[in-house]
């Protein structure tokens, strides 16, 4: 099975301290300054929706957001366009994009250092129910891929995986690490 439309969400530390409003001008400036290779198009503000997508930077190939789905605030990368490459490459690309965005936001003065990666939790899911229906067979089919990928991402660090088994929801899992990591560390591990 080929993994496509991978989403990676890096959970934020102390979410109650994060004000989402400054993200709107920040994301507009990212569009104007073409900060990513992907084509960035618009900003969607859903702060009025509880436990919703938050503030979304809409792109053609992918969306970036500071997302509060499930009342779990984090920086999310949603890959919309198909990618060439094997499953490891698709996972790496999505993780790298989410981490890069988070790194930019951590260093963004307008956020006053309040948006920080919690260092321990990452959600990964596949946004296509036909590519990856949320059932045991899918979990089994991708188990090795995920294991290999997370070993690289954490540089061999210990971790546990928890799958969301509600068949109505997207196929996905939550990674929990045994020690905190920084965004820079994880990016470094992916570069290896």
């Amino acid at each position: 099975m080929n993994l496509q439309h991978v989403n990676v969400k890096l959970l934020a530390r102390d979410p109650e301290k994060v004000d989402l409003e400054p993200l709107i001008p920040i994301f507009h400036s990212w569009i104007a300054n073409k900060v990513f290779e992907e084509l960035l198009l618009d900003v969607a503000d859903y702060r009025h929706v509880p436990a919703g997508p938050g503030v979304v930077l809409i792109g053609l190939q992918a969306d970036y957001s500071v997302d509060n789905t499930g009342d779990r605030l984090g920086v999310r990368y949603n890959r919309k366009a198909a990618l060439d490459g094997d499953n490891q490459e698709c996972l790496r690309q999505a993780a790298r994009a989410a981490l890069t965005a988070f790194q930019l936001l951590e260093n963004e003065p307008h956020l006053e250092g309040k948006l920080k990666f919690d260092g321990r939790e990452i959600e990964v899911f596949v946004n296509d129910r036909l590519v990856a229906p949320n059932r045991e067979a899918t979990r089994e089919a991708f188990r090795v891929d995920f294991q290999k990928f997370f070993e690289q991402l954490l540089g061999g660090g210990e971790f546990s995986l928890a799958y969301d088994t509600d068949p109505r929801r997207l196929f996905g899992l939550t990674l929990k690490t045994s020690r905190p990591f920084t965004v820079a560390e994880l990016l470094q591990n992916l570069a290896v």
Partner: protein
Amino acid sequence: MKVSNSQWAAELAGKLPEAMARELGIFDTEVALRKQGKLDERLFAETRLRRGIYGQRYDNGHRHDGTKAQEIVYPSGSLTKGPHTMWDAPGMQRIKIPGGGMNAEQLETMADLAEEYSDGIAHVTTRQDFQLHYVHIEDTPSLMRRLAAANITTREACGNSVRNVTACPYAGVCQDEAFDVTPYSRALARFLLGHPDCQNFGRKFKPAFSGCWQHACGLTNMHDLGFIAKKHAENGKEKIGFEMYVGGGLGTVPYMAKLFDSFVPPEEILPLSQAIARVFGRLGEKKNRNRARIKFLVNDLGIEKFKELVLEERKTLTYDPRWTSYIADELRETETALRPAGAQPPAGSDAFERWRKNNIRPQKQDGYVTVTVALPLGDITSDQLRSLADIVRKFTKETIRTTVEQNFAIRWVSKTDLPELYKELQGADLGGPGAGTILDIVSCPGTDTCKLGISSSRGLSAELRKRLEEKSFQLDEAVQNLHIKVSGCFNSCGQHHVADLGFYGVSRKVGGFAVPHFQVVLGGEWEHNAGAYGLPVAAVPSKNIPQVVTRLTEHYVANRAGKETFKEFVKRVGKVELKKLVDDLTRPPAGDRSFFSDWGDPREYSLGDLGVGECAGEVVSSVEFDLAAAEREVFEAQLAFDAGDSGKAGDLAYYAMLHAAKALVKISFPNISDDEGLIVSEFRSRYYDTEKFFDPFVGGKFAQYFLDAHAKSKEPRTPDNTRYLIDEAQLFIDASHSCYNRLGTSVTV
């Protein structure tokens, strides 16, 4: 864009109605042909529109980033999906929900599609539809297949076709209805969908059903075709039927529907609708989109002549068994409760009581209530949709409908279940109070996603909602019951004309910069199926609108007489005094640059590139002064109209347009005289023939209002036509401001 797009047809084979599968196969081919450049872009645009696929903002390949317009280089290059609409640009998918009726599986399907093809949000519209935004054109066939598998269509959700047939969401359970209109609305929706007599319209056609005359829920007065349930006695026997209305509509200039027949028996509603469709298709305007809605045809012909033509057409129709069989089919579909009727639960927590106060509506069936789930700005997440599906399965037989206030109504809830249901709604963040109150603001998408948006209606609505929520406990009861509705432009998708406090987006130039504004519209009525249309009172910078709301509502609370409604209050106090109340807010404070951007959008507001030379600076003040004078005149026209003097009102409205036109002509012809004919001819040659006045999206529509007003300036002024003329005058002046804004860099003296 999805890799699974090629697989859905096989995956859903046999799960779609055959006709639907065939039709979607055709659309697949059309998408492929257009992608290869083998299908004309105009034809493709029409075919996608008829399937509910609209363009979105920035789809012309340009985006203003606050300092300059930037080109968007899409990977598919110059390939388009319609004139000036780039192939890769994300678009909007509208999804029809007849009468707003859904089941749990359909809610779940909507959740999946919002998540996979959009941005995780499904948006409920003011016509009970859903909209998904940022959808790629190549994903739409799969999206439609998945909808079709859940028995939902997008067919004729846009384009010049019969749009969603709306109906009161409380039909069948309302205590005040004559009878349940649901079966009739569904039968009409089924009958008109894809009907050959409905394929030749010059514009869209919107039908609506209401179970009563006094409430708002059906909004029949503002629809092209409206039905209100009615009972009457004939030879001692009670008969059911419909008051039938035609030719209503909001749009730029709102028209109140005209009574077509005071009692139409059920078996006649489908054939009469068919006859109306034929007359509209045959005689309705085709070339000029701006006069192509049926309201213009009805107005031009007069309701009596129109009716005569329809009844003649009716006689020519060959009998169609579906006229009655569709209704009979639908009458067999009855809704019932899942759980036993119950008694009113005892008082609960403060939060529960606040919710119960406005979100619960007793049904005519003892022991049951309808629960309104209030959605902020009509938005709901995929997770919430799934929770809602669980809730309607648990407490009802999946009886849920969308409403025209962009909410959901869960029907047939046993009173006993209210505390438990409330708890579950709260768990899904869907237990917010204030349904149908001032907190429950209706808004169109505006500049967020709409190509026609002028100001940020959603940004303003979110800000108003936030501020009102903070003080909702202290709000006077009279204020709590007001309705706020916001449109991003003059097209009325936010239904601003029928609100207590309505707003629509306009732009104004201040100190050489474009500033987002909203026209404040007062005097509308939501009840009585949208019983009265308001008129604009003043254009106020967007950032001052919250203060406008505060001042007007406080003034209402302090000065209302007895139980006077807001509409009655506006009429009694008068627009002059209310205008005075907000007069100082019509100008941004000097030096406050926050007024140059809109709510929720930090970019410097722009309708194009800006720049003012020194010489132009003098012209700025002169033109603005003249346009402001024209605006005053149109306001005076309103006052004369309110006083019952149509003659004076019509003249004032016409002269307001003339003076606005003169203001523009003066830019390049400073010494023009007051000769009306000269002003008109100079306006025509300098602004109409050159298309400088043309709106980017509606072309010469507003200029045509002025030219028509001049041509008819000596004709007698009827109340109806004067009412339209006042609206047209305001729109012409708004367009004059926009034109002047666009001239920004090129103005030289």
